[in-house]
């Protein structure tokens, strides 16, 4: 009982690390994804955006994390350059890899939502004499946000789970602390079940928040059923 108590406390103390990594990469990935979608609209930058999405969706996140932490950080210009203080930190490397990886998935979600907006609406906005930014602000963005939310929410849940990979490059998040406790105590089953419960709590909380936002964006309940 005493062991389980102290372990739970230790795991809960690691929650801020996991949440920080999640929030920072969710923010970064969403921004990069918006840029990627914008790039896909112009012919010149389309290829680069496509290549980015192809590479980051087609390779495992674990490999990308190792690539940043061990691969890129070992290159001369990084190792001896001004970026070294950042690349020395495993948390920064995990954040960078997660931002790049998840931006590719989120870009696909946003692109799908963008494609679901009827062309007639854009034409109507043009006919009303709306400029590019007015169109984006009043017609496109509000609808993309609502259409993309369910799939975007799924990506966010995936991201919470993906933060556990940061433990492989010595970040002491919930999974990292769990592995540490097991290395000391050899009590595998109970520690992992506690860690699983912590993650379940986080994903359940996120899902509840998302459902609430979804409902507030859709007051008439048209999307339900």
């Amino acid at each position, binding site marked *: 009982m005493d062991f389980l108590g102290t372990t739970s406390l230790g795991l809960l103390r690691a929650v801020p690390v996991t949440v920080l990594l999640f929030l920072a990469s969710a923010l970064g990935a969403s921004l990069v994804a918006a840029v990627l979608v914008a790039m896909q609209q112009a012919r010149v930058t389309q290829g680069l955006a496509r290549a980015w999405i192809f590479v980051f969706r087609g390779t495992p996140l674990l490999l990308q994390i190792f690539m940043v932490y061990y691969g890129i950080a070992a290159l001369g210009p990084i190792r001896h350059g001004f970026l070294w203080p950042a690349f020395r930190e495993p948390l920064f490397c995990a954040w960078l890899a997660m931002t790049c990886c998840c931006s590719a998935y989120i870009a696909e979600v946003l692109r799908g939502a963008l494609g679901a907006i009827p062309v007639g609406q854009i034409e109507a906005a043009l006919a009303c004499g709306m400029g590019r930014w007015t169109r984006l602000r009043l017609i496109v963005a509000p609808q993309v946000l609502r259409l993309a939310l369910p799939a975007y929410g799924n990506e966010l849940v995936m991201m919470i789970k993906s933060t556990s990979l940061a433990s492989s490059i010595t970040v002491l998040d919930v999974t990292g602390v769990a592995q540490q406790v097991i290395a000391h105590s050899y009590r*595998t089953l109970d520690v992992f079940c506690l860690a699983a419960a912590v993650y379940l709590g986080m994903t359940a909380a996120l899902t509840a928040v998302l459902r609430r936002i979804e409902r507030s964006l859709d007051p008439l309940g048209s999307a339900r059923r």
Partner: protein
Amino acid sequence: MDAELSVPALLGFGADGWGWALMAAAGLTLAVALAAMAIGAVLGAALAAAEASRRVWLVRIAATYGLVMRGVPELLVVLLLYFGAPGMLAGVAGLFGLPAPGSPPAFLTGSLAIGLVSAAYQAEVFRGGMLALPRGQIEAAMAAGMGPVVRLRRVILPQVLHHVLPPLGNIWQFNLKDSALVSITGLAELMRVSLVAAGSTRRPFVFFAAAMVLYLILTSASSALFRMIERRGSRWAGGR
């Protein structure tokens, strides 16, 4: 001394090259993903059937399984099976008065872990597929005297396949990438071998880039294959 080797020599098939090792590792990655997909298909079908049953406790078990497996990181499941399996096996063996069998092969625990997660997602897909098929058709097929195999081949699959294949393709892609997590069990799949090569040659960038290319080949080749099957599968559905 190793740092002097050129990139082609490092990745080549010569004496100092890691070419063959990387190829074999990519094959093992594919094998892990295939095994996980198969385990996930069997368990996922069982879960979908449980969720469609009239017994409340079966529905609850299946729903809870899905909730837990989709809410817990895959890495945690792999770690749990890797570290926990020997103890669990010893416990089971102990019940029958047998000596502890030691740890099971890494391939088995690894693909089982990925498969257990995959099952939760595949169950959702199968459930959706079954909803797409009106019940009356099954009843009609039974009334026409079709056995379960004929029913599946002639009535269910042609109509459900084109609903089920695209999401199954997505799950396959996730399995392929999740197989990298099995590297922590020491199984010599692509992630593990590139780590070992990176460590022993001290050229991590080269080997991680090579592994990325191999993963990209695996994912894009299999997605092309899935698209081909999808096109065949939608022949009967009036697809494009």
